[in-house]
């Protein structure tokens, strides 16, 4: 691992997959990186950057923070790849790294939340493509309020909601990522939904939408 970054790229990945058209799985890519094929890490990066980024934007409530965390997570994954034991999915491992970084970041950052930032957190893309400008505006405002309500939850509840609703993880996958039994996943997720329901009622009531 110590010379991972500095080894010349090899054709190991191509030899392994046999063809450029065949998509190697994560385990093959990890093995290729550890064998010195730097391109393989690039492919892992491209494969998961958007998924991780989206999840982290919703968890942190900030694109900037999410970008920082994704960056750090991938770099840390690269330098610590030799500690990846392969008994979990690569994304699970990567997600854990990222979430630890996000939680650490959250602890040390100031809790400055401005209105503009809340607006920014909601995202800019319209949810549906064929809608009128008014509908787009309403959807955007609604998204802001949902994001605002989500940020009112504690880390545990927000995390599990993001994993389920945005990352579409099964209970088993969530349990693996968070190191929780499935029963706990089920009860925590239910509680998180109840809490978000209350928060949504509050924010929508305040905005009178």
């Amino acid at each position, binding site marked *: 691992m110590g010379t991972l970054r500095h080894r010349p790229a090899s054709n190991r990945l191509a030899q392994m997959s046999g063809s450029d058209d065949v998509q190697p799985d994560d385990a093959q890519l990890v093995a290729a990186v550890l064998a010195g094929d730097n391109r393989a890490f*690039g492919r892992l990066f491209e494969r998961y*950057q958007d998924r991780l980024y989206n999840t982290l934007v919703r968890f942190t409530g900030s694109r900037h923070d999410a970008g920082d965390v*994704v960056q750090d997570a991938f*770099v840390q994954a690269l330098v610590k790849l030799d500690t990846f034991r392969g008994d979990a999915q690569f994304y699970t491992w990567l997600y854990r790294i990222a979430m630890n970084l996000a939680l650490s970041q959250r602890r040390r950052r100031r809790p400055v939340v401005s209105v503009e930032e809340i607006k920014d957190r909601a995202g800019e893309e319209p949810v549906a493509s064929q809608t009128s400008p008014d509908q787009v505006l309403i959807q955007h405002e609604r998204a802001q309020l949902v994001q605002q309500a989500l940020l009112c939850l504690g880390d545990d509840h927000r995390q599990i909601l993001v994993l389920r609703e945005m990352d579409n993880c099964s209970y088993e996958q969530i349990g693996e990522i968070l190191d929780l039994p499935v029963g706990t996943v089920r009860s925590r997720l239910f509680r998180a939904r109840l809490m978000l329901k209350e928060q949504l009622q509050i924010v929508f009531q305040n905005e009178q939408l």
Partner: protein
Amino acid sequence: MADNEQQFGDDQWLSAYLDGELTSEQCAVVEQRLRDDPRAKQLLDELRDVSTALQTLPKEVVGDDLREKIYATAETRRENDFPHAGRARRWRWAALALAATLVMAVYLPEENRDEQPLAQAVPRQGEIAISAPKLEAPAGENKRDEIAAFKSIPTSDASSSMDVLAAGGQGGRKIEAEQHLHGVEEDFAVAGAAVENRPTDSASELAELPQLEDSTVGEVLQVHVALSDDQRGTEPFDRLLAANGIVFQEPESGFVDRQLAAPVGAVGGKLKNDSASELLEEESDDAELVLVEAPAEQIEVLLNACHDDPAQWKSLRLVGEGNSEVPLARWQSLQRGGAFRARSFGSADTPAERGMAAVLDSLSTDENSAPSLSKDQKKTAPRSSGEQLGWAVRVGRMSRVDSLRATEGERSSKIATLRSEFQRSKEQDKRKASDLEQGASIRVLFILHPGREKAKSAPSPVTKKKS
């Protein structure tokens, strides 16, 4: 109470039903309940609404604006770092840079670092900070070349740097600053000679350095670091530690000295009525304490990184025994094997940028087409090993006023508390001492001062006088 628990237990099946996480038998039970219990039906609908609200949030991907911004920054840096590169190679690198957009978005500063003034140190009132000008030594040049570059700085520039260094506003201080800087220059030369002519006897030199284990509490080396960026808090420092194999040990509950703790969390309650800038101004009086234990070489890397990146670190001040200033070069003389990392990296100066370069390398099929770690850096960069080389613990926060004006007794008392907690935390740590370099670890207390207003908005008396 039992009824409530039973109700909660029953209701959570509705949530699981919504997610398709029940067996067919469990589904049948839930569906029967939905037929019999209107409240259950209503709750299921509400849960579905919550789920839909989240699922219909826009998907976040790396945006075009971000890509363009990164592209421009990357191209600028590429031009600066590879002025003689051919056009084709430049565009090839740009394509790779696009592929690594997110990586670079985070790490490259928004403003062109080359436009930074020679010295950006803005010491606080009454303080003298070490802040050498940023030198533009080509990649691969050695320390001796750097010293030559340092000496070749035009007098006018050097004077302005001195002015900034002496921003305490007192004439006597200014002279002291000049002497101090001169001393740094001399020490650079000595350190360079040491690197070239003999292996450093680090054991004997370490014995002379303040160490927590073998000294009184008041003798612990304290490093005051003023951060440049208000917005990012102490994050650059955390990032620096991570990049250098120093792992944060999360303190046990109650570890943080509550007496020192600033009410950061309480600030959130005032946000609606206060502007962000006002809050930042208020909070800038905080300092964060991070105790680091690592081999001397790693401590040195941290100090050099802080010292050599004025974009992120305004100033660096080492305080040793009896509150005496410790020249940075004292640490640089610990260099072993001719490894000098401070300024000769060319395309990747900071640890963050080296991380970026590593990822870019991983995306590249041609080593020569991307900004890479220099040969020296490849040879010496400890972070590439992925090893844990040290560890750190965030021990609390204290106000700047406290950190500067606390009596020696008060400071010693606080540090004693920190030391005992630190030791206890370490003993609880499952990582064994064998993970670290045996016998060579040093403990240093970093006191991180968040950034203040830019110098241009509050010019120092000396600068003002000259203009």
